[in-house]
Every structure is written in structure tokens, then in C-alpha cells.
């Protein structure tokens, strides 16, 4: 039986004669034999494509089968089915093994994902209350009302402003000891000068008395 002929028989189911006539009427310039030739060409192309598709699937299948039964001889394949049912059942798991392994791996992966998701959720759920409880226990109770009062009087600052305020406080804390050390040093120098050269301090003392008299 000719393969192309068989294809041609069933591949033309969709070609509606009316549609072809309409197309022919729309293309007055084109002669009917030309349209026929075009249809023929389409049909040939379709037949050719289907034939090639069939050949390629056959070749692919043959290659896959050859790879599958490379080690097993034809007699072993026969023996698998020709033997008793029990033997066949025993032979089956060998081919199922990779699939079972993949399934087990999939389940294990799923379990790990679910466990991770649950533990993350639980961690998020319990982390803040536990933190608050720890802070509450660590804080002396007698300080609480005073701190509350302080918090009430403290201006509510936005996070940015809060950060700026903290920075400024830090700077002040750093500068304060420097100023103190400068004043101490000046006082020490004044006292030393007054002790060793009392006359040098007289103009200053006069200034002080004149200010007081005014």
C-alpha cells in the first residue's frame, strides 16, 4: 500500500469544496488549474512532512529501545513475560526503581520545604512575644512607672530625627570632657601665676574692683 496515497485519503478531510470555490471566485485572475496545482503542492508538502515525522519518531523510538535493552538480550526480555506471573512481578520493580527514587526525592524535598516554612512561621510568631517577655523580666519593676512618665514627656520623634538626636547627644558627650579639661587647665595656670608673680594679677584685680564699684 502506498503510504502517500493513504495519507492523501485522510489528510483532505478538512478541505471543504465550498471554501476552495470561494477562494477561486475571489481570485478571478488565477486560473483554476493554477489553484489546483497550489492545492496539490500543499498536499504534497503535508504528505512529505507527515512521512518525515513518522520516520523520525520511528528512528527515535528504535534508538531509545536500543539504549534500554542494550545489556539485556532478547531472551531475557522474553523470559520476563514468559515466566510465571510472580517472576514478572519481581522483574518489574527493577525498571520502577529510578521512578521510585525520584518520587522519594520529591517527597523528601517537599517535607523539607514544609518543615522550613512552618518553622519560619513559628519563629516569627514567637520571637517578638518572647523578646518582650525577656525585656519585661530584665527591667526592674520599680523603674517602670518612672520610665513610663519619662516616655510620656519625651517628644515623639520620627526614626530619622531620632537617629539625628542620638548623634548630637553623642557629640555633646564627647565634647564635654574636653571643655572641662580646658577650664581646669586655665584655672591651674591662673593660680600658679598668682602664686609666683602676684603683681602680674593686679591689673585683673583692679578691673574686678572697678566693675564692682560701678
Amino acid at each position, binding site marked *: 500500500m502506498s*503510504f502517500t496515497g493513504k495519507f492523501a485519503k485522510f489528510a483532505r*478531510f478538512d478541505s471543504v469544496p465550498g471554501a476552495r470555490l470561494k477562494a477561486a471566485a475571489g481570485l478571478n485572475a488565477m486560473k483554476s488549474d493554477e489553484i489546483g496545482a497550489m492545492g496539490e503542492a*500543499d498536499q504534497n508538502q503535508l504528505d512529505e512532512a507527515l512521512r*518525515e515525522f513518522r520516520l*523520525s519518531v520511528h528512528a527515535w523510538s528504535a534508538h531509545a529501545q536500543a539504549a534500554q535493552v542494550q545489556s539485556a538480550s532478547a531472551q531475557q*526480555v522474553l523470559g520476563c513475560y514468559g515466566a510465571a506471573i510472580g517472576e514478572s512481578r519481581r522483574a518489574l520493580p527493577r*525498571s520502577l526503581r529510578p521512578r521510585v527514587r525520584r518520587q522519594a526525592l520529591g517527597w523528601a524535598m517537599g517535607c523539607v520545604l514544609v518543615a522550613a516554612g512552618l518553622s519560619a512561621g513559628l519563629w516569627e510568631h514567637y520571637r517578638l512575644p518572647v523578646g518582650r517577655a525577656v525585656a519585661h523580666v530584665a527591667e526592674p519593676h520599680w523603674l517602670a512607672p518612672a520610665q513610663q512618665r519619662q516616655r510620656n514627656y519625651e517628644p515623639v520623634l520620627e526614626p530619622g530625627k531620632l537617629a539625628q538626636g542620638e548623634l548630637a547627644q553623642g557629640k555633646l558627650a564627647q565634647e564635654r570632657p574636653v571643655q572641662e579639661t580646658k577650664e581646669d587647665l586655665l584655672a591651674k595656670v591662673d593660680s600658679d601665676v598668682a602664686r609666683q608673680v602676684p603683681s602680674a594679677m593686679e591689673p585683673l584685680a583692679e578691673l574686678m574692683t572697678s566693675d564692682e564699684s560701678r
Partner: protein
Amino acid sequence: MNRAEETAGEEFSAVVVLHRPQIFRFLLSSTRDVDLAETLTQECFLKAHLNWSRFRGESSAMTWLMRIAINLQKDHWRNRRMQFWRQTQSHAVGLEEASEWLPSDERSAEQQLLARERVGQVAKVVEGLSERQRTVFLLRYVEEMELSEIARATGLSEGTVKAHLSRAVTRVRAELGGKR
């Protein structure tokens, strides 16, 4: 084991040798997964072996085996309980991989390239067909079965088989025409 059982066993062995490649090929082109096709082929012949005594020869052995294979394939894909995991684990490849195995037929490189392109186009359409249309199409154009055999194997009427085939071919024709 008595004489009748021996004869039945020999008959079945002959059936396996004769039809195994075809059953495997159909399942491979349907599922596009070599492992799965192999497993389903084994299941098919195991089932056939268990029911061999009930085979009355009303249709050919090939049609009977193909019916078992189609049902197994349907059961596999219809069991959607584990569909997500199946899809995740599936080793299915595109049907256009088949174009890699296209025999050269002493054609020029350009002709081979064109042929591969055509096969790829057909494969793309076949992948997009519904399950039933794809089954009918593959049985007709890959396994070269008669319409009456396809109808018996799929449990459909001949008219329905023709309708499915027509729709499938229309899509292939459109694809080939559009890409020209």
C-alpha cells in the same frame, strides 16, 4: 505445566516480540518520556499476560494491546492527585527531539535542515493537540493503523476518529502553511 499452557506461553512470547516495539513507540511519542514509556510498556504486557487467556481474537492482538496501552496512558495522566509532582519530576522532552533522529536519506544538508524544520513544526502541533486528537493522530500517521483499528483501540466510533483526525490535520496544515 501442561501442553496448552506451554503453547499459550509460546504464543504470548511471539506476540511480545512482534508488538513490543510498536507499543513502546506509541507510548514514547505520547508521553515523550523514555523511562515512563518503558514502564508503561512493561505494565501493558504484564496486564496482557494476566488476561491472555481471555483474549478471544475478535480483533488483532495489536489492536488489543494498543487498547491496553491507551488505557494505561489515560490512567496515568488522569490520576491528577500527584499531577504537580509528576510534572516536576517528568523527564519528558519536546517531541521535536524526534527530528534529531531523522534519517538523512542521502539528502543535501539544506534538504535535511528543511526536513527537520518541517518535523519540528508537526511535532509542535502534535504537542498542542488534545489527548484524544493526539492519540488518534499518532495511531494513524505514526503507527499507520486503519481507521477501523483505531476506532476499536480507542473505543470511539469511526466518525469520531475521522473528526479528530481532520481537526489534527487541519492544524498541521495551518502550521506548515503559516511558516512557509
